[in-house]
C-alpha cells in the first residue's frame, strides 16, 4: 500500500465547494456581527438567521445529493514538513461528504437556525444581543467544521474551537459570577479530555504516518491480527515499512480518542461541567445539548469507529452505562427546570456512548439524531416557561428572589400554556421512549444492540457483560420516572405561587411570542416516530438507521474490532423474539415509570410540593449529583490550588530572595573591581606618566642657563672622577 498515494490530492467537486460555503457562512455572520452588529438595523439578528437559513438550504441540497447515493471527498495538500531523508511529509486538508456528514450537517444547521429564531424572542432587549448572535455563528461554524473535515488534525482544531465558543456562550452573562465560573469549569474540564484526544492523535500518527481518516481506515483494512498484535505494511519514501502494534497500545490510543469524547460529551467522570453549563442562556443550552457540543464526542466515536479495539469498546460501553445511570439518578430529584434536562442529557449521552461501545454504532447515531430534536424541543420549551415565569413574577410584583426556574414554584401550567404543554408532552414522550415517538425507535435499537453484544461477549461463559443492557433497561425506568415527576410539577395540579396563573400569558389571546412558538412546534413534529421510520414500532425499517449502518460507512473488514462486531451483528439478526420482547419491555418500563411518578405525587398537597426538599440520604445523594463537585474540589482543585500557592511562595521566598541578594552581592563585587581598576590599573598608568614628569622637572631645574652653575656641575663631576681615581 503506497502511503503518499492514499493521501494524494483529490479534485474539488461542486458539492465539496458548497460544503465549504456552508462552513463559511456562519463564520461570515460571526465576523460581521462581531464587528458591526451594534450598528446594523435590529442589531443584526436577521443577518445571522438568514446566513444560517442559507446554510440549511445548502445542507439539505447536499443531503439529497449524498444520502445513499454518493460520497464526495476533496483534498488538498495543506502544508509540508521536511522529514528524515530529505523528503517532505504532506499534511492534507479536505472535505468529506458521506451519509454521516450530511446527516450531522443538516441537524447542526437546522437546530442552529431554530435556536436563532427562538432567540429573537428570548433574548429580546438583552444588552449583548448582537454579540449573542455573533457567538452563535462562531459556535455553529466550529461544529460544522468538526463534521466536515476529513482528517483528525483539522478535527482537533475545530474541536478546540467548539470548546472556546462554548466558553464564550456559557459565560455570556459574564456579569454573573456563577456564569463565569461555569464557563471556566466547562473549559477546564474539557481540556482534561482534550489531552487524551491529543495523545490518541499522536499515537495514531506515530504508527500510521497520516491524519487522514479515509487513509487510516484503508490502512487498517490492509492489516491483520498476529500473535504480537496488529501488523500492516505500507510504502513510504520508497521504502517498505512493516508496522506492528501491540494490542494494548492500540487499545490505549483508542481510549485516548475516547477521552476527548468523555470531556466533550460529558461522560463519567468528566460530566460535571454540563449541569453548570445551563448558566448560559436557555437557547444556548438547547444548542449545546442538542446539536453542537455534546454531539461532537459521539460523532468522533462514530468517525473513528474503525480505530477501537474490542477492549477499548468494552471500556466505552461500561463508561457509557455508568454515565447513563449516574445522570438518570441525579435527574430524579432536581428542582431546577433546566437541571432536570441537563442531567437527562448526560444520561442520554451515556446511552449513545454505551451504544457505540456495544457495537450498535448506527443505533447510537440514530439516537443522537432523535435526541437532537426532542432535547432541543424540551430546552426551548423550558426557555418559554422561564420567560413566562419571569413575566408573571414581574407583573405580580413578586419578590426578586423567587426562582423562576424552580419547578416547585410552577404547577397547573397546562391550562394557560396548552401549546407548550402539548409540544412538551410529545418531546418528553420521545425522551422516555414511548411507542410512536422517535426516542422509542432509537432507544430500542440501542437496547437490542447492547443485548446482542452481551450475548456475544458472554459466549465464553462470563455473564457479567449483561450488566450493561440491564443498566440500559433500568435507565428507561428512571428516565420515565423523572420526566413524569418533572411534568407533574410543572403542568399538573394547581399553580403554587400566590398570583393568577393567567399572568404568565403574553396576553389573554396569546400564549407565547410567535417567533418562539414556531421552532418548538417544528421540533415537536420531528419527535414523532413516523418521521424516522415508516413503521413506528420497528427501528429496523428506519431510513436513518439504514443510511448510517457500518456497511455504508466503511469498507469490508476495515475495523479493528471486526470479528466482535460481526458476531454481534449475527447475534442481533438472530434475535427475532428478543427484539419484540425488548421493545415491549422498554415501553412497559417507560409507562411504569410515569405511573410511579404520578402515583407518588398526585396526592401531595400544593403547599407540601412548594416546600419539598430531598429527604432521605439517597435523595440528597442524587440531588447533589453524588457529591462529585465537592469531591473534585477536594481531590483535584484544592491540591492544585495548594500547589500553585506553595509554588508562588517558593518563587517569592527562594527565587526572588536569591535573585535579590545575588544582585546586591553583584553590586558589591562590581564596586571592588571598580576600586581595583581605579587604584591599580589607573594608578600604574598614572605612575608611568608621573615619573618622566618628575625627571623632567629635575632636569629643567639643572639647566637654568647660568654659566657658573654649569661650571659648578662640571667641577663636581671632576671631583667625583678624582675621588674615583683616588679611592680605587
Amino acid at each position, binding site marked *: 500500500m503506497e502511503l503518499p498515494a492514499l493521501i494524494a490530492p483529490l479534485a474539488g467537486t461542486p458539492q465539496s465547494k458548497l460544503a465549504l460555503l456552508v462552513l463559511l457562512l456562519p463564520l461570515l455572520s460571526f465576523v460581521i456581527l462581531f464587528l458591526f452588529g451594534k450598528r446594523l438595523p435590529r442589531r443584526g439578528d436577521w443577518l445571522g438567521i438568514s446566513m444560517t437559513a442559507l446554510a440549511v438550504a445548502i445542507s439539505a441540497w447536499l443531503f439529497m445529493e449524498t444520502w445513499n447515493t454518493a460520497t464526495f471527498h476533496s483534498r488538498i495538500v495543506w502544508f509540508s514538513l521536511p522529514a528524515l531523508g530529505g523528503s517532505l511529509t504532506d499534511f492534507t486538508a479536505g472535505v468529506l461528504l458521506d451519509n454521516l456528514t450530511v446527516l450531522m450537517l443538516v441537524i447542526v444547521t437546522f437546530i442552529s437556525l431554530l435556536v436563532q429564531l427562538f432567540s429573537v424572542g428570548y433574548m429580546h432587549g438583552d444588552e449583548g444581543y448582537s454579540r449573542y448572535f455573533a457567538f452563535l455563528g462562531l459556535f455553529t461554524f466550529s461544529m460544522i467544521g468538526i463534521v466536515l473535515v476529513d482528517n483528525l488534525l483539522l478535527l482537533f482544531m475545530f474541536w478546540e474551537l467548539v470548546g472556546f465558543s462554548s466558553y464564550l456562550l456559557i459565560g455570556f452573562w459574564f456579569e454573573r459570577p456563577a456564569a463565569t465560573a461555569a464557563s471556566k469549569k466547562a473549559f477546564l474540564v474539557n481540556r482534561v479530555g482534550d489531552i487524551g484526544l491529543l495523545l490518541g492523535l499522536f499515537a495514531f500518527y506515530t504508527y500510521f504516518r497520516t491524519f487522514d481518516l479515509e487513509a487510516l481506515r484503508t490502512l487498517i483494512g490492509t492489516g491483520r491480527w498476529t500473535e504480537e498484535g496488529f501488523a500492516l505494511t505500507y510504502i513510504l519514501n520508497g521504502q517498505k515499512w512493516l508496522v506492528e502494534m501491540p494490542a494494548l497500545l492500540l487499545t490505549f490510543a483508542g481510549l485516548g480518542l475516547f477521552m476527548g469524547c468523555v470531556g466533550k460529551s460529558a461522560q463519567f467522570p468528566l460530566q460535571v461541567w454540563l449541569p453548570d453549563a445551563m448558566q448560559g442562556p436557555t437557547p444556548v443550552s438547547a444548542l449545546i445539548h442538542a446539536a453542537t457540543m455534546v454531539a461532537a464526542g459521539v460523532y468522533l466515536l462514530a468517525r473513528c469507529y474503525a480505530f477501537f479495539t474490542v477492549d477499548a469498546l468494552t471500556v466505552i460501553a461500561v463508561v457509557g452505562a455508568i454515565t447513563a445511570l449516574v445522570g438518570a439518578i441525579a435527574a430524579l430529584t432536581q428542582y431546577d427546570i433546566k437541571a432536570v434536562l441537563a442531567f437527562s442529557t448526560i444520561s442520554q449521552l451515556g446511552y449513545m456512548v454505551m451504544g457505540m461501545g456495544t457495537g450498535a454504532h448506527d443505533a447510537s447515531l440514530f439516537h443522537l439524531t432523535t435526541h437532537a430534536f426532542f432535547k432541543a424541543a424540551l430546552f426551548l420549551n423550558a426557555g418559554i416557561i422561564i420567560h413566562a415565569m419571569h413575566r408573571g413574577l414581574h407583573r405580580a410584583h413578586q419578590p426578586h428572589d423567587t426562582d423562576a426556574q424552580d419547578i416547585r414554584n410552577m404547577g397547573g401550567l397546562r391550562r394557560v400554556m396548552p401549546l407548550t404543554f402539548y409540544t412538551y408532552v410529545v418531546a418528553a414522550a420521545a425522551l422516555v421512549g414511548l411507542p410512536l415517538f422517535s426516542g422509542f425507535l432509537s432507544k430500542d435499537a440501542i437496547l437490542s444492540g447492547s443485548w446482542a453484544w452481551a450475548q456475544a461477549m458472554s459466549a465464553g461463559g462470563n455473564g457479567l457483560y449483561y450488566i450493561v443492557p440491564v443498566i440500559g433497561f433500568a435507565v428507561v425506568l428512571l428516565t420515565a420516572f423523572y420526566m413524569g415527576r418533572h411534568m407533574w410539577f410543572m403542568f399538573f395540579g394547581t399553580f403554587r405561587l400566590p398570583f393568577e396563573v393567567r399572568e404568565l400569558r403574553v396576553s389573554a389571546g396569546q400564549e407565547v411570542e410567535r417567533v418562539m412558538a414556531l421552532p418548538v412546534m417544528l421540533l415537536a413534529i420531528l419527535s414523532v416516530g413516523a418521521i424516522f421510520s415508516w413503521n413506528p414500532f420497528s427501528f429496523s425499517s428506519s431510513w436513518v438507521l439504514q443510511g448510517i449502518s457500518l456497511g455504508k460507512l466503511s469498507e469490508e473488514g476495515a475495523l479493528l474490532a471486526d470479528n466482535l462486531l460481526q458476531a454481534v451483528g449475527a447475534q442481533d439478526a438472530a434475535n427475532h423474539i428478543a427484539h419484540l420482547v425488548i421493545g415491549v419491555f422498554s415501553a412497559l418500563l417507560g409507562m411504569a415509570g410515569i405511573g410511579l411518578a404520578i402515583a407518588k405525587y398526585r396526592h401531595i398537597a400544593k403547599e407540601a410540593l412548594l416546600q419539598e426538599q430531598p429527604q432521605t440520604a439517597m435523595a440528597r445523594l442524587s440531588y447533589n449529583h453524588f457529591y462529585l463537585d465537592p469531591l473534585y474540589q477536594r481531590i483535584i482543585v484544592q491540591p492544585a490550588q495548594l500547589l500553585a500557592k506553595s509554588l508562588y511562595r517558593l518563587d517569592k521566598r527562594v527565587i526572588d530572595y536569591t535573585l535579590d541578594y545575588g544582585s546586591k552581592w553583584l553590586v558589591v563585587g562590581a564596586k571592588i573591581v571598580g576600586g581595583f581598576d581605579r587604584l591599580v590599573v589607573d594608578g600604574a598608568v598614572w605612575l608611568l606618566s608621573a615619573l618622566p614628569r618628575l625627571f623632567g622637572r629635575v632636569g629643567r631645574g639643572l639647566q*637654568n*642657563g*647660568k*654659566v*657658573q652653575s654649569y*661650571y*659648578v656641575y662640571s*667641577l663636581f663631576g671632576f671631583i667625583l672622577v678624582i675621588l674615583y681615581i683616588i679611592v680605587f
Partner: protein
Amino acid sequence: MKGIPLEHILLLSAVLFSLGVLAVITKRHAVVVLMGIELIFNAANLNLVAFSRYDASLLQGQLFSLFVMVVAAAEAAVALAIVLRVYQHFKTANLNQINHLSK
C-alpha cells in the same frame, strides 16, 4: 739643590687654585670671572715650574709654563673680546642676567 721645599709651593698653588675657583663661581661680573680663570692658570703654571726641578737638564715644565702663558694671553684677548660683544649685546656683564641663548 736647596731652596723652598716642594710642599710649600704645592700648598701655594692649591690656595691659588681654590681662590680662582671661588672667584669663578661666586663673582657676578664676567671680567672678574676671567680674572679667576687667570688665577687657576697660574696655579697650574706654578705646579709645572715646581715639578720641573726633577728635570734639571731640559726644564720641560718651565718651558711648558711659558707656552701656557702665551696661550693664556691670547685666550684672555679672545675672552675679553667676547665679553665686550656680550656686553654690547645684552647691555650688561652680569652673568646672572645672561641666562638666555638669545634675546
